[in-house]
């Protein structure tokens, strides 16, 4: 039942766009992305795609509004916070955004990183030459999910239903095995440690979108 609900969602362009939006949100903030925050494109997109999915974006909109008015200052605030939450921090790194930090024995490049690499390669992707971070980084995983969804949609559009289903199954398996097992813990840590509301809200969005709380409700919805 869950998978039926899933497939409906996965083909929804909104859902895919939301994944893209989150993937960008969990990557290091640069000026061009921040401009989409400040000029409202990014929040607008999220509102447009998430509200029909039943996810409230009020919090993140408020968080974006709460950013400093000056572009430089806003970028600086976001970058300091990102560095603090996800790269290196004093007193200590609150939320390394890697699956391996939460699943397995606790050091990075563990089994989850290997599993992610395997999934990428099987889907016909390699990490880009200039990509410097680890394979099980949340941002990369989300981009992968979105890309798979887009591939599936393309295949469906081209009338290749079996291929579309295969890709959707890949996508679902990746979400189930590589993202869901650790995302709630990660989000909790972000929510606890974040000093600006933007990343707190972003984590909340990610969790409500990717780990819908009551699986039961999902099943009921799917069963109707």
């Amino acid at each position, binding site marked *: 039942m869950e998978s039926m609900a899933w497939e409906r969602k996965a083909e929804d362009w909104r859902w895919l766009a939301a994944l893209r939006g989150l993937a960008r949100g969990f990557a290091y903030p640069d000026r061009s992305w921040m401009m989409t925050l400040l000029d409202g494109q990014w929040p607008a997109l999220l509102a447009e795609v998430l509200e029909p999915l039943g996810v409230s974006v009020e919090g993140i909109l408020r968080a974006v509004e709460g950013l400093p008015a000056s572009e430089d200052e806003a970028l600086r605030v976001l970058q300091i916070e990102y560095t603090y939450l996800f790269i290196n921090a004093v007193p200590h790194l609150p939320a390394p955004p890697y699956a391996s930090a939460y699943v397995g024995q*606790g050091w990075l490049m563990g*089994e989850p990183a290997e599993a992610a690499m395997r999934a990428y390669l099987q889907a016909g992707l390699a990490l880009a030459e200039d990509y410097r971070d680890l394979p099980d980084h949340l941002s990369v995983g989300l981009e992968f999910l979105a890309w798979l969804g887009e591939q599936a949609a393309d295949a469906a559009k081209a009338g290749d239903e079996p291929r579309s289903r295969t890709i959707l199954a890949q996508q679902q398996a990746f979400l189930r095995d590589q993202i869901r097992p650790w995302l709630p813990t990660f989000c909790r840590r972000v929510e606890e440690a974040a000093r600006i509301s933007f990343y707190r809200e972003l984590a909340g969005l990610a969790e409500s979108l990717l780990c819908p709380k009551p699986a039961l409700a999902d099943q009921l919805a799917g069963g109707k």
Partner: protein
Amino acid sequence: MSKAMLVDTSACLACNACTVECKRENGVVVGKDIFWTRIQTHEVGQYPTVRQYPLKRACNHCTEAACLSVCPTGALSRHEEGFVVLNQDKCNGCGYCTQACPFGIPQLDVMDQLSGKAKANKCSFCVERTSNGGQTACAATCPFGAITYGERDDLLSQGKARVAALQAKGKSKANLYGENQMGGLHVLYVLEDTPEAYSLPSQPQMPAGVTLWQRITRPAGEAVIGLAAVGVLAAFATARRNVKIGEEEGVGEHEGD
């Protein structure tokens, strides 16, 4: 034909290289003080004639294994090469093995106290490696050749030769541990001193609780329940017949009152 490991404590330098590689190789849970093998140092005597002996503590893979007797799920099983394998997928965390082992080796990784969600942890002789012709990770790791993996018979003679060499060097108490204990261990130890100096029981026993359970409780249970069932069925059958007769006679059992 069975496989074993020989641990030469006289060559062990207590560096714990085996400890860390075992943990990595087997993906053992980190941070809960759970180890499939680790080094313990035992001190005997007094300054300045004190001695310190390292001992690699891990499952000894007994031939008469108490853990195997008490495991209700079959998570513990005897490998054809003689050692005792733990399949964590089958384990339901009952913890009986942790209580039965005369060496106190298996550890329980408790994930939830209330539901009792837990998994037993102990050395499985690197079963995937050894089943594919490899040696155990600790043996492959040891920088000082203190751990040898091989045929048990070969290791017995190797161990005895090493003991003889130690004795010749004046270590008169040197001995080989594990040849006969618990029906023969699949981890043999060259010790420089008495087993007690290493806190090893010289004659480890199957715990009384396990023996009682095996020899008495289970057969007794089967007998008593069986007898009760048989008795009741017999009573039922005979009484049914007899009582019917009584009713036909129109007397009933009440008449005698």
